[in-house]
């Protein structure tokens, strides 16, 4: 059992009357890679700034290893930040940028030199020590920013969308690099992003935020496979949503009518009653596209096919107009695999792969926000 390093208790923050964080609780464990994920304006950056000390909560407390640091200025907090735009000092060389934090600690010259050289070697920039930040590429500047923050050996490293300015390929490389660094240094990483793919692939745990409230906290797998609510389900990955009507409830199974097809499903964790409606969630990769003569599944027809290399993505319109996304791996032995546009098919899934959620009253705005975030 890992111990808690940083703890936020009942934290609220408002800017000009607008609530950004609403009585939020969060415990960050020692040594973990935790990601704050959410659409823009969800409060993730504010949360990070509260940890760094650039902002102070209106209510609540921030505790680091048992010490209250709620009102401690940033220079006295044993944690460092990697800024979104890197914030390298333009008038200093790479070496001086990295050495800055150690000079502030008044370390002896020899030690500074050794530690800066060490950390520059770690990010593979030892040959660039004399350069000025503007003489470096985006990826190199990013590595300087990381080196400058980790050279102080902080207990906690805060990263504010550090990869958002990089192109796709470099982003990928840096993701791997960051993971490697985190393993080598054993420092706790708090990573802020709006990119769900990045969050899933890098984190030990993910915090999904919306309008200043934690929607779900869990491992990437929990977040993806067992979303706590519709927002998380839609924000993290693509999802198909079917309305289901409960026909009967047994000890640990329920019978649900999904668009006219009756399926026997595992009883969910939340309370269900006969006649109620539930949401049946299925990820595109859980969907099976079957031949039209198959007796299972819901009838529909193919309206779009997208070849994605390793997968084939289809959009299927069911008879009642519901749109279903399906993502299938190639199976060259399956003769019926390649359907044409407009061809009738049936969609189904393996029992137990569905995920049930209670029906939520959802405001219209929420859907729009989810869509923006996906883009």
């Amino acid at each position, binding site marked *: 059992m890992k111990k808690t390093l940083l703890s936020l208790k009942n934290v609220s923050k408002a800017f000009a009357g607008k609530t950004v964080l609403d009585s939020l609780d969060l415990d960050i464990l020692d040594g973990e890679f935790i990601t704050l994920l959410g659409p823009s304006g969800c409060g993730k950056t504010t949360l990070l700034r509260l940890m*760094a*000390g*650039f902002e102070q909560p209106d209510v609540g407390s921030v505790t680091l290893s048992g010490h209250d640091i709620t009102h401690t*200025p*940033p*220079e006295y907090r044993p944690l*460092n*930040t990697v*800024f*979104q*735009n890197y*914030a*390298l*000092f*333009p*008038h200093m060389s790479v070496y001086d940028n990295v050495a*800055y*934090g150690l000079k*502030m*600690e008044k370390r002896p010259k020899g030690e500074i030199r050794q530690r800066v050289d060490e950390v520059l070697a770690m990010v593979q920039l030892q040959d660039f020590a004399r350069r*000025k930040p*503007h003489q470096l590429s985006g990826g190199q500047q990013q590595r300087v920013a990381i080196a*400058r*923050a980790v050279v*102080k050996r902080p207990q906690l490293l805060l990263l504010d969308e550090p990869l958002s300015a990089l192109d796709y390929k470099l982003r990928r490389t840096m993701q791997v690099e960051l993971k490697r660094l985190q393993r080598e240094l054993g420092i706790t990483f708090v990573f802020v992003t709006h990119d769900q793919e990045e969050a899933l692939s890098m984190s030990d745990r993910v915090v999904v935020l919306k309008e200043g409230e934690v929607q779900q906290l869990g491992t990437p797998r929990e977040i993806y496979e067992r979303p706590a609510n519709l927002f998380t389900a839609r924000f993290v990955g693509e999802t198909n949503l079917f309305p289901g009507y409960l026909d009967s409830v047994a000890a640990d199974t329920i019978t649900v009518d999904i668009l006219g097809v009756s399926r026997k499903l595992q009883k969910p964790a939340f309370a269900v009653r006969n006649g109620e409606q539930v949401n049946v969630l299925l990820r595109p990769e859980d969907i099976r596209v079957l031949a039209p003569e198959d007796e299972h599944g819901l009838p529909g027809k193919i309206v779009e096919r997208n070849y994605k290399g390793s997968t084939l993505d289809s959009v299927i319109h069911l008879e009642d107009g519901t749109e279903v996304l399906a993502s299938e791996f190639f199976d060259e032995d399956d003769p019926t695999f390649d359907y044409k546009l407009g061809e009738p098919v049936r969609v189904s899934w393996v029992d137990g792969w569905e995920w049930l959620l209670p029906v939520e009253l959802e405001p219209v705005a929420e859907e729009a926000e989810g869509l923006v975030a996906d883009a």
Partner: protein
Amino acid sequence: MTRWLPRTYLALVYLLVYLPILVLVVFSFNESRTGYSWEGLSLRWYESLFNNRAMVGAMWNSLWLALSAATVSTVIGGLTALALHRYRFRGKKLLNGMLFVVMMSPEIVLAISLLALFLLVGLQLGYVSLLLAHVTFCLPFVVITVMARLSGFDDSLPEAARDLGASDFTMTRTVLIPVIMPALLAGWLLGFTLSLDDVVVSTFVSGPSYEILPLRIYSMVRVGLKPEVNALGTLLLVFSLVMLMLSQWILIRSKR
């Protein structure tokens, strides 16, 4: 046909601007006493200039005044710009607007009002009154120059410095001031030149105890121009060219 027209026009413009200056430089090396005809190369007017005690004294006074006025206005103006950039406070817009009022108002108005003020408080006209007046009209230029630099300033830089363990003061010393240094220098140079060649305001607020160069030259012109003035003009020209090159060099070097 269409090609030489703009070129001739351009040449004419440049000729008009630079010919008088060229004539001044050439005639500063003229042996002639009258300055209307060429009588051979000589450095006599430079010699006579340096032997003119009152003139050299006025030059030193002017340089000292410009130096101190530029420095004082850079310090005050730099701090004002920082405050305007960093803090939100009541009357911020008013303060900003007042700076422009000083810059836009006719010099004669400024001169009269400053004189009235100095007389009212009983300040003896001399170095101090000149310094106060010069700082007044240099200040808005410094503030605007520094503000321009600060508007492109990345606000996460101070935060990064604080995050790395710098106190507010250390951050200002090691990050903020070095980053806005080119603007401070540019503001200083601007203030220096403004102060050095100011006539209108200085005429009103200077006293007999402290004579400055522009006023000295002005009074000489009235009693009859000696070619010494050409020599002085040439020296000032060289001096301002050096300053200009220096400021350009600083700007280029600081370009990112």
